[in-house]
């Protein structure tokens, strides 16, 4: 599961690609945690533009990033969320928790 990062000052953008299911989630979680611990950003943008499929494993991933950023007194924004992932995240109310750039 490839992820790519871009850091500008204390702002971190993480681009996630591929299919986010339980099979892929563990590695993705570890990778994301590692990047957050290294960058300690004030704001995190999760760019989901390359996500071909997401199930509830993706909800847990986004919520974990959210909790980590709350602990860092920072914020999380979702970006380029594809329709299928948007429907899953909205079913869990994640759209009411986080700012969301279409």
């Amino acid at each position: 599961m490839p992820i790519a990062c871009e850091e500008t000052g204390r702002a971190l953008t993480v681009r996630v690609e591929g299919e986010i299911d339980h099979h892929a989630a563990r590695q993705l979680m570890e990778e994301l945690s590692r990047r957050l611990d290294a960058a300690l950003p004030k704001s995190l943008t999760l760019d989901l533009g390359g996500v071909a499929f997401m199930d509830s494993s993706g909800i847990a991933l986004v919520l974990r990033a959210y909790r980590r950023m709350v602990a860092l007194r920072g914020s999380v924004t979702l970006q380029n969320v594809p329709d299928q992932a948007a429907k899953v995240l909205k079913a869990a109310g994640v759209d009411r928790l986080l700012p969301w750039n279409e």
Partner: protein
Amino acid sequence: MKPVNEAKLTFWSRSANEGFARTAAACFAAQLDPTLDEVNDVKTAVSEAVTNCIVHAYPDQLGLIVLRLRLYPDNTLEIVVKDSGVGIPDVDQARTPLWSTGGADRSGMGFTIMESFMDAVKVRSRPGKGTTVTLRRRIARRFPG
């Protein structure tokens, strides 16, 4: 009503089979000429049901999962996901949004997603025997032109 087509797959509870199962269901559904949204709904619900077998039904051993796909004359797709794992002691509680025995890696939203993406979700379970989840979704008929 008798099905007009049926397929049955049996596979091990390896997480690599999550993608296999939802793709197989999508391929079977393709004969109904579904929209992309309809295919994605089916894939998402199957992914939830199969992941539950892998994560919860067989927590520390491999077991078999049966995926049965049926197509009915009224354009209804029926998907049955069956395991012979630990079972669910209280199905109503398990179906409650956010309820999970899975810890921080799980969100407790699997059944809620199946319910909102499918027309009907039926769960039968016996502790120590296993769980059968039946998903139904009617695919809209599309006419050319």
